[in-house]
């Protein structure tokens, strides 16, 4: 096996200067909410780490996850694909086809056994031995099992891979099932959404590369950093909800003033996602900001919790704070011990733990 380049070497090879590299580390640290001192540790870690080979499989899906991924503004999708990971198989963009494409899968599995990341977009239909999705002449479910077996970990992109999504909505005619129902012996990170936000997708990938471990997951297997709070918790229209100012009909006066969309069926109060904070397409907007309620696309079985325009029952008007922390209990155990693939990681973990510990201390002298 050829020596695997480190992350830093790759960046340098792509013409990134030492100065820009350090800057990149500072920004990354900042965007993860870490203190400036952490940037140095990050830089150190990244200089000794290799690029991770990634195999990106497609089952029954609509490719919205791939399309979302290439919209990423920070980091740019171009930089992720060409510099941060080695995207050795992705049938949506790869040059090779047919036998040459299949060969890529085989080669990577052989060369990087246990060391590649398997990203899955879409899911496997199980009905009738999997004939509703055939790729390379065999059922997708077989391909998924094969390449998951030797993967380091699995990323379930989007609601199809995470929950089943639209093809699994009732009556689920093809018996489509999410990835974790097929792959049971590997860590599976769910990144739900239809699609997930671009920067959430690249954020999860860069987290794994940067910290050499899976992000902390909630009990359902989602990264807590992006799926730990409800859209409603951080919605910029929350004030109107609390004030009882609701859009009553499309394009009424309330709509033109940006009032709360709860009465038109908004699922923000029950949906865990980063839409109201990270927002979409480089922060341009998110569904509620553009006048339509959230349809809850990152939630399990959201297609069958409709109709979409029927208002949610049982939403506490005030003090509804039974939030993601409830879900999160026990999540650390799910993550498990397994993800530290490189020896140089301990410093990073130590620092990260220190950061976490710090956040639990009472504020000193009143300054945050």
């Amino acid at each position, binding site marked *: 096996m050829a020596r695997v*380049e480190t992350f830093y070497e790759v960046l340098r*090879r792509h013409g990134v200067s030492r100065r820009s590299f350090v800057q990149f580390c500072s920004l990354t640290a900042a965007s993860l909410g870490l203190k400036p001192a952490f940037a140095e540790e990050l830089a150190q870690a990244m200089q000794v780490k290799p*690029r991770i080979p990634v195999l990106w499989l497609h089952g029954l*899906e*609509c*490719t*919205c996850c791939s*399309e979302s991924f290439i919209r990423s*503004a920070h980091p*740019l*999708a*171009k930089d992720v694909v*060409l510099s941060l990971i*080695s995207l*050795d198989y992705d*049938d*949506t963009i790869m*040059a090779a086809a*047919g036998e*040459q*494409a*299949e060969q*890529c899968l085989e*080669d990577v599995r052989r060369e990087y056994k246990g060391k590649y990341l398997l990203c899955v977009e879409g899911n496997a*239909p199980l*009905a009738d031995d999997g*004939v*509703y*999705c*055939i*790729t*390379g*002449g*065999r*059922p*997708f479910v077989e391909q998924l099992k094969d390449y998951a077996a030797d993967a380091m970990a699995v990323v379930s992109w989007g609601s199809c891979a995470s929950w089943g999504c*639209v*093809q699994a909505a009732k*009556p689920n*005619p093809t018996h489509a099932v999410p990835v974790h129902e097929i792959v049971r012996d590997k860590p599976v990170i769910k990144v739900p959404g*239809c699609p997930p936000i671009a920067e959430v997708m690249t954020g999860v990938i860069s987290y794994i590369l940067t910290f050499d471990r899976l992000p902390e997951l909630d009990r359902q297997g989602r990264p807590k950093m992006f799926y730990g709070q409800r859209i409603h918790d951080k919605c910029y229209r929350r004030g109107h909800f609390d004030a009882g100012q609701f859009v009553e009909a*499309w*394009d009424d006066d309330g*709509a*033109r*003033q*940006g*009032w709360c969309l709860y009465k038109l069926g908004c699922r923000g109060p029950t949906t865990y996602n980063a839409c109201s904070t990270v927002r*979409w*397409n480089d922060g*341009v907007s*998110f*569904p*509620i900001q*553009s*006048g339509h309620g959230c349809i809850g696309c990152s939630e399990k079985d959201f*297609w069958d919790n*409709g*109709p*979409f325009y029927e208002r949610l029952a049982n939403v506490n008007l005030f003090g509804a704070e039974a939030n993601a922390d409830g879900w999160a209990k026990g999540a650390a155990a799910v993550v498990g011990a397994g993800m530290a693939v490189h020896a140089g990681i301990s410093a990073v973990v130590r620092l990260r733990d220190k950061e976490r510990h710090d956040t639990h201390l009472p504020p000193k002298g009143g300054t945050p």
Partner: protein
Amino acid sequence: MSTTTPNGFTLDGAGRRVVVDPITRIEGHLRIEVNVDEKNVIRNAVSTGTMWRGLEVILKGRDPRDAWAFTERICGVCTGVHALASVRSVEDALGVTIPAQANTIRNILSLALYVQDHLVHFYHLHALDWVDVVSGLKADPKATSELAQTVSPRWPKSSPGYFKDLQTRLKKFVDSGQLGPFRNGYWGHPAYKLPPEANLMATAHYLEALDFQKEIVKIQTVFGGKNPHPNWLVGGVPCSLSIDGAGGVGAINMERLNLVTSIIDQSVDFIEQVYIPDLLAVASFYKDWASLGGGLASKSLLSYGEFPQIAGDDSNKSLLLPRGAIIDGKLSELHEVDLKAQDQVQEFVTHSWFKYADETKGLHPFDGVTEPHFAVGPNTKGDPKKKLEAIDESAKYSWVKAPRWKGHAMEVGPLARMVIAYMAGNTQVKELVDGALKKLDVPITALFSTLGRTAARGLECQWAAHQLRAEHHKLIAGLKAGDSSTANVEKWDPKHWPKKCQGVGYMEAPRGALGHWIVIEDGKIQSYQAVVPTTWNGSPRDAAGKIGAYEASLLDTPMADPKQPLEILRTIHSFDPCLACAAHVVGPDDEEVTRVTVT
């Protein structure tokens, strides 16, 4: 033994079978098999869609106002096209006319998609069929700069240093042995014809386009809240317009309009300074492909028309790109298309993995039936549940149905739209097409080819970028005149709906003619059917044996090396396949999905 199909193509399955599965750089799962003769010329072609999701089965019994969200998820590449066809079908069924400004905003959403989708197709799904990335290592950066400045004098990223830097990075990348998406590509294949300098320039633009495409879709995000999969609304659009008074930050205001203006300006620049010059430069080295890959293109073309200028009016006086059909190669005769006429759009399943009571006949979408029935023929090699070696096209062989227009297999897509608009006398389209033909010094018949299809998409992208600007101006002009209504809610409440009604929603998706047929009863979806562009183009044979556009287009193409199927990729990619779209359907009599058997 060769046979001639009723639509005039000669098939000969005697020679060596070549299989390409997966076809990559497309949406979804597609398998192509061909037979080549002793000179490696393609004499038989078989297009097999290998996925089915059953979305229309899932829609049955649901709220018609929700259908756009379900159907939008048919495809995330041409995101929004199914949503638009869906809301139009419901509005048609209920008799809802949307406000003029909502119509304009829908046009803006769709045109933004055209621009982004065509651009991404050219660079990221198609370019590697023509551009040898590795050859760019041999380029002289100075000569590359001269080439870039010649084809595109106004584009700033064209200095020798720019290309030198890219080349250095490219060299290190290739030397590392970790080629990522370029791994195992067809580099050095004899069918690559570009000089190293053109390869290097195109590689630079591949990367620039990847960065830029994400800007274009922000237009959809402004009006629809996110991309992919923006939000739509039966009766109009969900966003409100508010340029005056309190609360403008909760609606489309001046800042939002300015953002859209700025993106449109950048898009026009990118298309005209990068995409079109690259397209013409690449095409000039591949003129042999102006006589290959035509298939149905010179015979049968179909467009439902798009971009209504009058809300709710889908007649050709309203549609910017006209509706019509060309058959039997008679270009000057444009046939009227009626999506509700029982004898026009029909689907056959003789060679599809579905079952009809009488498979010699086609069914109109309002009467459509979808009963999946997976069964392969006796001459199949291998087992599709383990490893399929070769499909038997004499039996059922695809998850894609075979739609026909008055019995004709049709090609749909940018080429069909451009030719139909050209023949209907659209001056903007005529100017663009004539200009490109003149620059390349090729006759109009060159359009009916692999190269023509690819060129038509680029020209349409340019047209769309300008039209996007025009629609945005119209939106602003409407606001100036005091029109800020974006939704008609008169029939929002199901209590205003008839007990039973049915409607059709048309849409010209980037990939071609798309139709949704809905039947509503007691406020619920009783039947839903989508006939999509890739169903037309990727169609298998029908009851009479007529072959579809993909299959026809591959015939008579010589391959340099059948083990390296670059020629197949070129022609198939020129259609921009979208297999998830080719998903299907439930009819009024369909109760549940039946067991699937392998014979």
